[in-house]
């Protein structure tokens, strides 16, 4: 019952926010550079739907490709460090050094290396996602109780058996949490890198609209980006609930 009421209030809050926004923008007839009305943003988004859909498709592709690469590399690297602990010495400090740089600061360098095309965005997303997943996967693998490992060993399980049967399932909740956070990050990084230089995509649209002082277009690009991000987040969350059914 209380949960039901909470949802209702949440919807009420959202509706209220949009109403106040619309009323303030219309009532005070605020200029578009201060705050365009919600209805104007929606109308503009619909009017430019072809441009926005194309841009959104490019950004989504970059984010998805980078996300896939980053997840695989992140989990793989963490798994490798668990199976071969000797590698920790050189790999961990290198990873920390790369990670100590704010991720967007790599964007100009990656753009110089890989060019203005989609490759540079995919690489940036893979970098950002990879680190998030790597750190959470490593924490997950290390969380396993020493005694459980010993128990499986005593039953004659090899290192591979311990990894597949014990470490991976035990680490899954943490890996999934990292992957959920990484969804949002993948879109942000793709958009930010596009702002610096691109042939298309939402970040490019935002940057162009800022230089053209087209405020409504900036808002509608943000709207599309948010919709993609929410959908991606929801999708990964749904898969997580399926895979980690015991939580």
């Amino acid at each position, binding site marked *: 019952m209380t949960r039901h*009421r*909470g949802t209702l*209030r*949440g919807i*009420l*809050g*959202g509706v*209220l*926010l949009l109403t106040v926004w619309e009323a303030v923008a219309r009532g005070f007839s605020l200029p578009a*550079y*201060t705050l365009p009305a919600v209805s104007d943003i929606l109308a503009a988004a619909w009017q430019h739907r072809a441009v926005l859909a194309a841009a959104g498709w490019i950004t989504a592709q970059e984010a998805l490709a980078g996300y896939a690469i980053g997840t695989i590399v992140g989990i793989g690297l963490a798994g490798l460090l668990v199976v071969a602990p000797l590698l920790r010495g050189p790999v961990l*400090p290198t990873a920390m*050094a790369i990670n*100590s*740089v*704010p*991720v*967007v*600061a*790599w*964007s*100009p*360098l990656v*753009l*110089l*290396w890989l060019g203005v095309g989609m490759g540079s965005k995919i690489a940036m997303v893979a970098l950002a996602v990879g680190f998030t997943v790597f750190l959470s996967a490593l924490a997950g693998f290390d969380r396993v109780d020493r005694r459980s490992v010993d128990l499986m060993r005593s039953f004659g399980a090899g290192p591979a058996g311990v990894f597949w049967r014990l470490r991976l399932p035990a680490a899954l909740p943490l890996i999934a949490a990292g992957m959920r956070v990484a*969804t*949002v990050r993948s*879109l*942000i990084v793709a*958009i*930010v890198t596009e*702002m*610096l*230089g691109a042939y298309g995509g*939402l*970040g490019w649209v*935002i*940057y162009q*609209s*800022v230089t053209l*002082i087209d*405020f409504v277009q*900036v*808002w509608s*690009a*943000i709207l599309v*980006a*948010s919709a993609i*991000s*929410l959908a991606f*987040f929801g999708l990964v969350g749904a898969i997580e609930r399926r895979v980690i059914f015991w939580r």
Partner: protein
Amino acid sequence: MKASLRLAGGLLLAGLIWEGAVVVFGIRQSTLPRLTEVLAAIAATPGAYWSGFLRTAIETLIGFAAGTVVGVANGLIFFRAPILRDMLLPIFVVSQTIPVIAFGALVVMWFGNTLMAKAVIAFYLTFFPVTVNTLLGLHSVDPRQVALLRSFGATGRQILFRLQLPMALPQIFVALRLGASLSLVGAIVGEWFGDTTGIGVLLLQAMYNENVIAVWAAILCAAVLGTGFYALVALAERRIVFWGAEQ
């Protein structure tokens, strides 16, 4: 003392490996310049790098400090007024999953190319996680402890400052550490929309000039600022949450 010596040793070793790898493998300067070349570039115009470093640091710090204060206050308000929490928290959670950094473009348009614009971007990137985690921390307090204090005649204010806020601190610091990196990213990206000083500007100018050495010099500045800031927050955490379990 011993730890700082080891840190210095590690940094020196990393520098030697960087320098040595470039020379040994004959890596082209356009891919990875030698560390000494990068340091020489900084030493050639120390003023530009220092003022950029300072400017970005101030933007980040102002935004971070304001975000912390408002975030904690907001968490307290949500804790005290469940109606507000139910109405606004879902919006907060949704806003966590959208690429907030895209709003950076709007903030720069609102405030112009001022220091304030970047501070505002850093502010809202810090403010959201701090609000959510403050609320989480306050809710994690055992109600029996509150009942105990109340039975001793403690006032609401005493319960808040003696029990609830201290108990919430570990959670708040998780958000602060996240905010430390996010606020720096926000400040750097904010500078891309046109400014004259700052690490973001240094990155952008170096990219447009295709000057890889200058890009690396700016990345180094960003790494020093990011690591230093993160270390400060972690140090504050260890001092303030002295009872917290070391990770």
